[in-house]
């Protein structure tokens, strides 16, 4: 039930907004993320944006830090 997905915001009209992912347009409620604007990426759950993502995050989900880099590099 805790499934959420990232959308790129294309339109904001008051508390309702439209976002896009993979060519699909999806409407969502932005009441929990005041200040959201077109071009932002948001995480949407149950029809509502619950978090504004940092730019770039929406495309690459894996956070690479040293221990993980080592695992991927040393075979």
């Amino acid at each position: 039930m805790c499934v959420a997905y990232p959308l790129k915001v294309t339109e904001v009209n008051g508390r309702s907004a439209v976002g896009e992912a993979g060519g699909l347009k999806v409407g969502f409620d932005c009441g929990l993320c005041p200040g959201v604007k077109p071009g932002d990426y948001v995480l949407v759950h149950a029809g509502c944006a619950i978090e504004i993502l940092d730019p770039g995050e929406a495309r690459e989900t894996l956070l690479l830090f040293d221990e993980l880099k080592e695992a991927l590099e040393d075979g």
Partner: protein
Amino acid sequence: MDKKRLLSKISRYDGKPLTLMEVCGSHTAAVFRTGIRNILPPSVRLISGPGCPVCVADDAFISRAAALEGRARLISFGDMARTVGRLRPGTRVETAASPTDAVMRAKAAPAEDVVFLSVGFETTNPVCALSVLRAREENVKNFFLLTCNKTMPPIMEYLAKAYPDTDGYLLPGHVCAVSGTGFYKEFCKKYNVKGCVAGFDSLQLSAALYLLMYGKTLFSNVYSYVKEEGSPSAEAAVREVFEPCPAVIRGIGEIPGAGLRLKKEFAAFDVSCRFGLPEVFPPQDAGCRCGDVICGRIEPPECPLYGVSCRPETPCGPCMISSEGTCFAYFGGCERRSV
């Protein structure tokens, strides 16, 4: 990203035996769906935790919901609606993608009382809070919540104390996207256990499992959507509308501070204000071992009802109904793909 390399390391793990718990119901479904559970070596035991909000909803909540049949229009998320409908035949619960939709339905039908069966952990709690704020803003007076919302930290504390044999936790990505990682970092230190926050695809799961097996740091986060501070505006909505209360977790019992109830200033949206529901505590199905399944103490087939009287078509408990329930996932309800 070279997922194959991570998967190969996971499958070849030969260190000390590990018991790892996936806390979140979406992770339970994902470890089956991605097939990643099948590549784990025998020395790594992956157990399910109490993170499916539908599965941990207690019988009293379900009975209270059923008691409203005929008196109010009931609406909830799909899994909760199906669970109430299956366990209390004759109770009709409409589904809604969002509780804010339920507010709009209430607004469109002012002569009816609309009750949203409000379940969820940190990911969903802000959305439930938003529905109440929306109902107040729109002056919708026929919208009520029957709350069964919960918060993860007191439950994690319970698990760590009750089951100190757990070596590591796969931590819920979307819960942390809202709450942030502060609690979990402290938790890992306090109980000297590993924890890794992860998303829900096979790359995320393999990175997290790799770190839980081989990693040197106690706490890690591999999910870029999760910031240390979480989502302050979503958290603020929850704090505005709800306050902590004791929660009864199916199979565990009462955990202080693990629940959320509406604050006094929002009492007009509390279902008990409108209907004054009696407390109802019906017994659980005799022999159903939900509690042990929810805490990862047993695997579903060890429950005497599993696969016999309790099957997806004739479920005895929510773990067999919810799409994120351990028994449902175990039964093959999740399509298996190879990682």
